[in-house]
């Protein structure tokens, strides 16, 4: 099989070269506290809980694009599809914390759990209070909410926690809001193609034409099942059926929506999906408070999309509307 086509130099250096580009392109937003530890130029300040996010690379703009005033104070940057080790987490936290504790947030994957737990232990040893909130929004990944993966819903969940921290709420409150946001965020995705790691440039799975993976994660892990590629409305309906059932929001409730590209699915398709998502929400009697449509949490060049719905209350709506100014994401 021919190597996949990528605009890279050396597959082993893509993350560091990307990071160099990110820092060069966003000098007003981002700085490097230590290798692989990106921090916000404005945002971190005395008395504020520091929000540190992180995870593997290859999901851009997740995670490092969400560093900035009003959202994350720092980000630990892992290898492609690999949790960062503890050190950059610790470095980002020490460089940004304001004496009010640190909240570590990341998607629920075995590797991330182990590395961030080690980071939290190291921070405690440095007398910095560190708490952890895992995101678990991928409803396809397990019937048990606690075992679910964190995927595109991260955007909303991190956003809510970042707003809480920016409002100078204490660590208990920031943690509570983060958990609350996570509990109310529901994502499901489908993949129409595989992606490939820069080191191997091999498609990470075979997907015959005319088929799709349903319940796809964001690392090219196979989904829960494979099925024929259906029309967009039918795909949305399958995802929305699952999301609405899990969410069980009463008519009249208000939601935030994210229709996310896994990489190479273009805006044209995302908006076709969005049109049906909006119809389904209307049919369910739910109001759309705000929407995001675009590539927010990707798997490099994978084709596919995910739908995230966050069931809002006044508090969460306020957190989503709170301004943020990040390298790759802005609100307000």
């Amino acid at each position, binding site marked *: 099989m021919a190597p996949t086509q990528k605009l890279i130099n050396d597959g082993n250096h893509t993350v560091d070269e990307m990071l160099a580009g990110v820092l060069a392109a966003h000098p007003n937003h981002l700085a490097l506290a230590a290798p692989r530890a990106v921090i916000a130029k404005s945002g971190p300040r005395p008395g504020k809980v520091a929000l540190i996010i992180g995870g593997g690379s290859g999901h851009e703009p997740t995670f490092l694009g969400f560093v900035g005033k009003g959202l994350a104070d720092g980000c630990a940057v892992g290898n492609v599809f690999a949790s960062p080790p503890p050190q950059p987490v610790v470095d980002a936290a020490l460089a940004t914390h304001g004496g009010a504790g640190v909240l570590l947030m990341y998607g629920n994957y075995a590797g991330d759990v*182990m*590395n961030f737990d080690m980071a939290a232990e190291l921070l405690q040893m440095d007398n910095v209070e560190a708490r952890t909130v895992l995101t678990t929004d991928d409803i396809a990944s*397990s019937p048990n909410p606690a075992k679910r*993966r964190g995927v595109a819903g991260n955007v909303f969940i991190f956003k809510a926690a970042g707003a809480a921290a920016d409002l100078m709420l204490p660590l208990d409150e920031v943690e509570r809001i983060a958990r609350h946001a996570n509990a109310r965020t529901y994502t499901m995705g489908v993949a129409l193609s595989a992606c490939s790691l820069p080191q191997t440039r*091999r498609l990470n*799975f075979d997907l015959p034409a005319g088929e799709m993976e349903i319940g796809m994660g964001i*690392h*090219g892990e196979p989904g829960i099942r494979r099925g024929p590629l259906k029309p967009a409305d039918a795909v949305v309906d399958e995802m929305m059926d699952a999301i609405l059932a899990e969410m069980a929001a009463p008519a009249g409730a208000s939601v935030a929506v994210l229709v996310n590209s896994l990489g190479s699915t273009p805006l044209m398709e995302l908006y076709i999906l969005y049109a049906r998502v909006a119809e389904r929400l209307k049919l369910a009697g739910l109001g759309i408070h705000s929407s995001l449509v675009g590539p927010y949490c990707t798997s490099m060049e994978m084709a596919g999309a995910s739908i995230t719905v966050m069931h809002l209350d006044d508090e969460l709506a306020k957190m989503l509307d709170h301004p943020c100014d990040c390298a790759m994401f802005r609100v307000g």
Partner: protein
Amino acid sequence: MDFTTQNCTDLFAALAARMAAERDALCALDGLIGDADHGIAMAQGMSAAALAVENLATLQDQFNAAAKAFLNAVGASSGPLYATALMRAAKAAGPRAAMPRAETPSLITAMAEGIAHRGKAAPGQKTMIDAWHPASEAAKSGASWPEILQAAQTGADATAQMQASLGRAATLGARSLGHKDPGAVSASMIIAEFARALG
């Protein structure tokens, strides 16, 4: 003939070479039930470890340096698991420039315990523990290096019949059946290099 720091340096060089050679095959295995990066993690980790163990005075320092280098180069699941394994091996080897060959199977037991401690996996969940645990049991019972390796390989092969309940493959449910766990396969390769170097 003792297992010396020079032998240890050679062992890590062999581990790095083996993981580099198996990188793409391990990635392909990981692609079937995971995220296709296991070979990259193992190759990067062992290559960093091999650099780190050079010119250190004791086996303990070497294994500790290997642990730290592996972790920082890799992260992922393999990073904390192998870092913890190698730190336990460091403790087992102790602050000495050499250890008797007859003692070396204790390294496998120590590493397996480290992995179990860090990952909290039990045998049967389709993880690298399914290679490390039987190897460790064999080591504890006084088995020879070929027997330890045999136990690891049998364990790794058996993961094909397991349904994953931990790690990335857990989501797959029954779809994980029929594919070996990449971490168990790389574990049996690592144990093979230990067996070659120490046996």
